[in-house]
């Protein structure tokens, strides 16, 4: 374990040094990314300014959902955003070399990249989260504080599991990347709003089966001390870690099956 963490450090440091080799391109990309992130932020401000309430949720309450979801997804993107490349690696056979090294393939994907510019996205999520927490009249208890702190990594694990699980489709059909994106990027969008605005079937599928409701909705209910507009058991508000564990196990299992199906490329 210690050895693996040290290796992660070495590999990520190498990736960062590589990015800094192309200084001009790095600066341009970072600036570009910051501009796009800022525009996203403007969209949220406009949205919040015009929608003071959304299905029993006040504007700062929605900002809390948004902040949790954006921050957790930014961490996800920082760690496994390179899954976007997996379909190319599978198509051209680059994935071969991951199978030739004495380390887990998922670990190698996680450690294969670290895009510094994605930190901007995390900062944006953090700003919204801090704003929400500063204006909301939350009655803090140790349990609420603990749940908030735990929710970020737990939700990131859920996002990562969803992404890993769905990206496995590229081992069968190389064009399947868009399907996975619908769940990863789409999931982040879905988690930004309260579950009770969605249609029942959408909620069942994306909220519970793909457990996006556990990312921001359930923990936010507890932190806010808000009665669940859907009237679901309060225990669900603490189920995040368990859901994350199950999701991670399912994703790991799926990944192993998918890798066995890998067909490489060329003669």
């Amino acid at each position, binding site marked *: 374990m210690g050895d693996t963490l*040290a290796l992660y450090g070495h*590999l990520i440091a190498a990736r960062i040094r590589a990015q800094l*080799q192309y200084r001009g391109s790095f600066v341009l990309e970072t600036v570009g990314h910051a501009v796009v992130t800022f525009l996203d932020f403007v969209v949220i401000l406009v949205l919040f300014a015009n929608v003071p309430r959304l299905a029993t949720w006040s504007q700062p309450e929605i900002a809390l959902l948004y902040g949790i979801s954006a921050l957790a997804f930014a961490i996800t993107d920082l760690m496994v955003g390179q899954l976007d490349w997996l379909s190319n690696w599978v198509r051209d056979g680059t994935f*071969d*070399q991951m199978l*030739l*090294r*004495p380390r887990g393939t998922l670990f190698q994907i996680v450690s294969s990249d670290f895009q510094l510019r994605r930190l901007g996205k995390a900062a944006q999520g953090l700003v919204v989260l801090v704003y929400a927490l500063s204006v909301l009249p939350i009655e803090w208890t140790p349990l609420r504080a603990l749940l908030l702190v735990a929710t970020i990594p737990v939700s990131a694990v859920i996002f990562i599991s969803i992404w890993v699980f769905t990206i496995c489709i590229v081992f069968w059909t190389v064009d399947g990347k868009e399907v996975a994106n619908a769940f990863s990027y789409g999931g982040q969008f879905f988690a930004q709003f309260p579950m009770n605005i969605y249609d029942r079937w959408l909620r069942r599928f994306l909220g519970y089966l793909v457990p996006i409701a556990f990312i921001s909705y359930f923990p936010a209910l507890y932190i806010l001390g808000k009665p669940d507009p859907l009237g679901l058991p309060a225990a669900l508000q603490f189920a995040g870690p368990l859901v994350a564990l199950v999701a991670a196990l399912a994703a790991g299992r799926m990944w192993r099956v998918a890798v066995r199906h890998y067909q*490489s490329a060329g*003669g």
Partner: protein
Amino acid sequence: MALIEVENIRKDFVVTRKAGRLRRERSVVHAVDGISFTIERGTIVGYIGPNGAGKSTTVKMLTGILVPSAGRISVDGLVPTEQRIPLARRIGVMFGQRIQLWWDLPLIESFELFRHIYSVKAERYRENLASFRELLELDPFLETPVRQLSLGQRVRGELTAAMLHDPEVLFLDEPTIGLDVVAKQRVREFLLRANRERGVTVLLTTHDLADIERLSSRILIIDHGKLIYDGDVEALKARYGTERVLVVDLEEPGPPLRLEDARVIRTEGLRQWIAFERDRTSAARLVAEVAAQAALRDLTVEEPEIEDVVRRIYRGVAQHAPNV
């Protein structure tokens, strides 16, 4: 027990292609179709065959990349795809057309990363690196980013990376492809020394008959997914590689030459291609015979290409096998 044991392995790929607007036809391609062989520790074995014969697919099954559709493989006592990670620590792999090194980083940094990935002890790493730096003359470009290396330099870097963790066996897929004569020679020297001094077993695929001649005594030939020859290189040449081609440029165009123990297989303007059997006549006698008939401007002798040898063997197999 032999280091590598392969028993009746097969690899089928399902290929779908469009047949009409919505309909898709599925067909099964047998990339590897029932191959068996064993390789003893400390040997160098050449694995050859035309493009698409199944060479790379076999190597990918041996190294744990592809799961065989059927059959049994054991490499140093391990089942490749079942025990991929322990196997990866004991094998070194170099695919001539793939890059293992970190493209944007100085070469030495890739070696450092491999040291961590393979958990090579610091002292052993220093010893190995020092030895490869000298053998492969890496020092002039050790600090150069990999993307700026020439192909020859990069291959030397790749070979080092494949050897830093003291593998028991090296799998090389086209290690000399695209290299000039000097660089090829350097790679071959290195492999011979690794085999002799470190006892590394080597399995290499190549299109270059010279690689095989310099390196290995044993050769496996595969075509259409089947093993069609397993034996010594000398025996192979004696049996199939005896036909050489003398290419002559004449001073004036003329009809195909008539020669005693050889035949003209092609003419083009002033140039004629004459095939002859090594054991029936010599190049020198043939040249004299040609010179007696026409004025010679230039000449070269072509050695049989590995593809030709394979084709001849395959034809032989097809002729002898019933039901073909």
